[in-house]
């Protein structure tokens, strides 16, 4: 009997301790992949870019610059220019984790496999996100970004050096993408008839403009998107979470938060505030942009089938109108006589879009009047986009857009709580909403 007990105990113990194999090799996730080719990752980078420029950042900017009105719940406080650091967490996540990280991963994997074209396209996306973040926040991590092994707490590069880096990235991308059309690797996310190189030049123009380098902005704009069909736009369908994000926000998610009651943009279109150039076509544009509330007490951005933010309406990522207006402004500021023609090209294009009258300018080339006309047209035409917000801050609000409250339009977005919590390199003291970014 004791022998039996001995053997038994021995068996019990050896089973327990020798059975490491029972638990081995079970810890690789069956629900996720461990690797993927870069062709499959570029899409996520592009979604991150689309989200950055068409989601909450654009809505906040739209309220800040008086395109829209925050009318319900948390948006009421946004309308009062009261936001907190955590309101910007999403923006950084969209930009860095969903955008830049995936773009750089795509780029690196593509370079490994010799797919220079894909690397260049990823680089355009990367540059655009860095550029937009620098424009919104000022100093941001750039040279040490997305390299956690070496830089767990990335340093903040100066706004000017980031914008310079963006230009370098775009220059390099242009050499990689040749003359390939922008439909390549755009999937069902993005659409444009232009080439990737033209898109890159257009972005160069935008970020030169933001850096106030007007002569380079002019050169780049003239190499950029040259037809309305060349605009790079997001694509949307009626399926859940593929709709236009303004539509998603206003109809599916946060009914009543975002309106346009008594907004400055509304006032410009309905004649409450006079335009620089009297524009009869704004009546049509008003109907396209805004819908009145049934009670007659206000307006909302138009999310109906025929509206600017219809369920399936595309959003501009960078448009023909923007590039032409950059060209007009840069020419105007650098003494180039092309300013009048570029501006009138936009006006006549608008006339064709709205099938109504958008009279050409009567101001002379190089004049401040023309500059105001260009910026006002950009303010109106680029509804729902971030660029007019950059323009207002860059031009020290030359258009005199009235703030929602107080005397100043917010001068930036503020750093997110998530960086404040994790990255000791976040600038100190923290700038407030009304501290201009360095380039402004």
């Amino acid at each position: 009997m004791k022998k039996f007990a001995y053997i038994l105990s021995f068996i019990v113990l050896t089973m327990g301790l020798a059975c490491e194999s029972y638990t081995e090799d079970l810890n690789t996730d069956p629900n996720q992949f461990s690797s993927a080719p870069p062709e499959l990752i570029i899409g996520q980078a592009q979604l991150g870019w689309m989200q950055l420029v068409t989601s909450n950042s654009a809505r906040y900017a739209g309220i800040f610059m008086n395109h829209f009105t925050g009318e319900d719940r948390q948006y009421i406080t946004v309308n009062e220019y009261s936001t907190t650091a955590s309101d910007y967490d999403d923006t950084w996540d969209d930009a860095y984790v969903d955008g830049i990280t995936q773009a750089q991963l795509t780029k690196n994997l593509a370079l490994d496999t010799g797919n220079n074209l894909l690397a260049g396209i990823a680089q355009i996306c990367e540059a655009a996100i860095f550029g937009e973040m620098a424009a919104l926040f000022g100093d941001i991590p750039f040279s040490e970004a997305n390299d956690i092994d070496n830089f767990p707490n990335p340093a903040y590069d100066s706004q000017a050096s980031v914008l310079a880096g963006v230009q370098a990235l775009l220059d390099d991308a242009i050499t990689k993408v040749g003359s390939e059309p922008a439909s390549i690797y755009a999937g069902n996310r993005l659409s444009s008839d232009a080439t990737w190189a033209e898109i890159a030049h257009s972005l160069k123009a935008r970020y030169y403009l933001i850096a106030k380098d007007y002569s380079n902005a002019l050169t780049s704009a003239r190499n950029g998107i040259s037809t309305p069909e060349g605009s790079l736009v997001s694509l949307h369908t009626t399926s859940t979470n593929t709709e236009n994000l303004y539509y998603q926000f206003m109809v599916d998610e946060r009914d009543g938060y975002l309106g346009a009651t008594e907004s400055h943009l509304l006032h410009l279109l309905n004649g409450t505030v006079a335009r620089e150039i009297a524009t009869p076509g704004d009546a049509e544009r008003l109907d396209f942009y805004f819908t009145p509330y049934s009670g007659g007490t206000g307006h909302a951005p138009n999310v109906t089938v025929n509206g600017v933010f219809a369920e399936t309406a595309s959003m501009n990522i960078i448009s023909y109108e923007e590039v032409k207006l950059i060209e007009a402004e840069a020419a105007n500021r650098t003494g180039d006589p092309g300013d009048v023609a570029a501006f009138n090209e936009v006006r006549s294009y608008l006339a064709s879009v709205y099938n109504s009258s958008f009279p050409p300018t009567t101001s002379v080339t190089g004049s401040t009047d023309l500059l105001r006309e260009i910026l006002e047209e950009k303010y109106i035409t680029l509804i729902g986009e971030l660029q007019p917000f950059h323009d207002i801050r860059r031009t020290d609000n030359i258009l005199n857009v009235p703030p929602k409250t107080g005397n100043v339009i917010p001068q930036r977005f503020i750093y997110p709580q998530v960086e404040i919590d994790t990255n000791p390199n976040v600038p100190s003291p923290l700038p407030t909403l009304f501290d201009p970014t360095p380039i402004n």
Partner: protein
Amino acid sequence: MKINLKGILTLFLALVVQLSFAQEKTITGTVTDEAGLPLPGVNILIKGTIKGSQSDIDGKYSIEANVGDTLVFSYLGFNSQSVVVKDANTINVTMVEDVSVLDEVIINALGIEKKKDDDLSSTSIVKVDQLQRSGEAGVLQALSGKTSGVNITRNSGDPGAGAYIQIRGQNTILGDSSPLIVIDGAIISNNSIGGGTAGVVQQSRLNDINQEDIESISVLKGASAAAVYGTGAANGVIVIKTKRGTRGGKKWKVEYKNSFSFDQVNVEWEKQGIFGQGFGGVDHLTGSGQSNTGFSYGGRIDARSGGPDTVDTSGAYFEAANGTLYYPVTQKNSTEVFNQINRDAVFKTGVTIENNVSLSHSGEDSRTFVSVSNWDQDGIYSGASDYRRTSLRMNSDIDITDKFILKMSSTYVNIESNRVQTGSNLNGLYLGYLRTSPDFDMRDYVGTYFSPSGVPTPNSHRGYRQLLGSSRTFNATNGTFSYNSPAYNNPLWTINKQKNLNEVNRFIFAPELNYEINDNLLLTGRYSLDYYQDNRINYWPAGSAGDGTNGLFSEDRITESNQNINLFVSGSANILDDLRMDYTVGTQFFQNKYKRLSAEETNFTNPDEVFLNLGNATSANSNASDFISLTRKSGAFALLNFDYKNEFLFELTARGEYVSSLPNAGMIFYPSASAGWNFTRHVEDTNVISFGKLRLSYGEVGIEPAPYSTETYISTGGVFSGWGDGYEGALYGNPLSQSATRGNPDLKEERIKEFEIGFDTRFFDNRLSLSATYYNRTSEDVLLELPVAPSAGFGTQLVNAAEISNKGVELDLSGTIINTADLQWNMNISYTRNVSLVEDMAGSAYFALNGFTSNSSGVAEGQPFGVLRGTKYARDSNGDLILNANGFPTASATEDFISDPNPEWRGGLGTSVSYKGFRLSALLETSQGNDVWNGTKGVLYFFGIHPDTAVETVASQDLVNSAGDVIPSGTTFRGFEQDFGAGPVAVDGTWWRGNGGGFGDVGEPFHEDASWTRLRELSLFYTIPADAIAKLGLTNAEIGITGRNLILWTDIEGFDPDNNLTGASKGRGLEYFSNPGTKSFITTIRLTF
């Protein structure tokens, strides 16, 4: 560590196999109790040896012994007896019952019974009658208030609602926070899957177990007691023993129980009934549009002219199911207020019927217990809210030979329920109910909408934000209907038209083999399988709010299985004359398998029929997803108890194991050691102190990370904002994305180290007992999803970085105040204080556990676990409010820690008085110092529904409101004057809709002290005298009534602070339109044949 364990194990082996003995003569005899009935299973040991025997079913035993040996007879619940062997070959022994009824028995982690007096940890036992009196639906809830050190909070009063259980403090941020549940040796799941800020109130899987089947529950609070389970036992162990057939006595016994329970909502929100739907003092008129304001800032309802509203019958209208027609209102005339009518339409008295039959049988060589139980609960809403549980149990013990026993424990449970949407959810019951304006009659919630051109929308949903009901248009291009629906559900739509069904099928099968290798060595082999499938269906008809606008159907199929193999040998040995050792050495294999297959369809192809199946949407609107996981553990353990002269007690435990989710951690070793000193014999006056024991223990246990955390993955992409808008990757070419969570190959277990000291004493002839325990537990290497700077390319990384400490005191005092033949009066008091502190967060400022971005419960260094964070009002260095130009406070730019949801202390006071057949018992419970974020209140301010907003004031001087508008002196305005520091201002709707209400940036004013005291139970039972029922063949009959949760004392208004928005989550103290709690009246009949 490896060597250590092996050394200890080798020692055990040596003991196991040691030596034999001389054989002189055979002693036989019978062991009986004082009534002369045979006592089976009595241990007979020759003092100073490990040689022993046991009495058989007839109380007979035999043992080889020498003359002069001392035979020690011991049996749980009886006094030990020593008899010296003389010439006689027959020794009959009558065992005397240990008079101390307090000679309680606990069950250790392995399910082995042990005298409470020998326990060196602070294990509590809860007996069947205590559970049965509670009147609660679930085992978890029934444990509430029964013992110190255990905090149980039910999620809500909804039928089948689960509960949160926390033994001592919280130990882990990301790991499992539920105790390990062991029922008849089977490790079973206590999952509560789901439970965010929206959805339905989830069940806790432990509540699947039929309470009536339970014999006793041991709560192992300390780490030393749990250490034998190692990883997974960090939150304590709950060992449940179910009823079994007993040896001897009556051959069969049938018990029947019936109870009726009547449930009502226990606390309700008050709503203002003065101002109507509208804005700025102007009544809302429906006009031609369909979307109506959510605000109740209209005119005074009593100032209207009376009579029916003036309506426009020329265009669109709504025809209710009962034929009532609703037209757009052009002039509000009606002075009716519908708050009470609406309330009565939503709530009713819920009824639960429980029936329970059990049969136990005691046979020649087998014992069986069979039970059938049905619990049928209809909730407190006038709609579909129910929970039906049917369970079967069969426990059977078979003596295959006199040395070989097979114990079978098996149960099958079926649950069907229909739940109700709750929380931060446009389809949530309370969200729509509480926000509804007082002048809106919600009873006509469904009907037909007719457009101005007469096109009908059937099954139209009418709510206060869409007075003409939902309407639809047909989109010929994509062939679907597009609905325009109310912003919030009418609550009657929520409870009558939406379905949130679940069905659980579960079986637990746990065979155990006991083989007596020799008289003193027992081999136990256990296998257990706990398997369930939880199938959930949500059906939101088209016309519902939010995501249900065009219809939503989702189905979840969750399956989980837990398999456990346990093999151990146990025995005892007398090492020296007075030194006895009990040992257990064993091994365990455990496997958990989980699978969840989910499918969701939106935009119904045919919205006109209730279709509870997939296939009612285009493929683009039909999505499926799947999650599977498999984890395993293998370990060996040893448990060693020493007893020196019944005075000094020592216990050593060791466990070594491999865990599949920690592939690079190697073997993980957990030690524990305990010591106790029973000083009773040194007490001079045993009439005063009848028993005394000091105990001291140290133990380590662990928590494993979620599986698959050691690698960085590529997963399917998509981007969403915190507002809910975003791009669904699957519909955008399904791009892949490097995960935002960075894998960490160096992960190791979270380790809880606990030191515990305490005493157990009894006084005055055992009539008063007092136990106290102080513990100090530290969780080290706590896993933290450390936020990574987004600019570094990841969102988070899992790191063993944090440290949490919990220190606390547990006191239990119980006494028999009166003890006569006719009258007994018992009382017990428990006190628990736990202080948790997050010691280290590795530089991370904050990790949110649950809640919203604005107000959440989370962890931060230097703060108690679960601290509530939000935005405060901005203050200067003197602590004075920084006011804006209008004289109102402003929001601080960053978030702060505002309040603490952990109670400072909890206490329970139970008492029971028995007089002849009557027994009256009560349980009072209190929780003091716990805070809550009352998000509901802030939002009711915002909408002008809270009674605080329904006051009118005449301005004493020219005042400005928060918007800067001037209210001239002498003007009446809706609101009141308040001075924030810059002179009086007008607090009115502009403030409540800004930073003075729930949607502003500031959460501070809505953090409240949620201390409570409640009469948790009050019951009166009567046992009918035996002679009166004997004729009916009954041996026992009892009837009783119980009141559950009858009285609640708290400063909190509107809800029961026992509720938590996010259910059984680690985040606590959150309230946001969560479904209410209940109180109940219960009648019970118990009959025993």
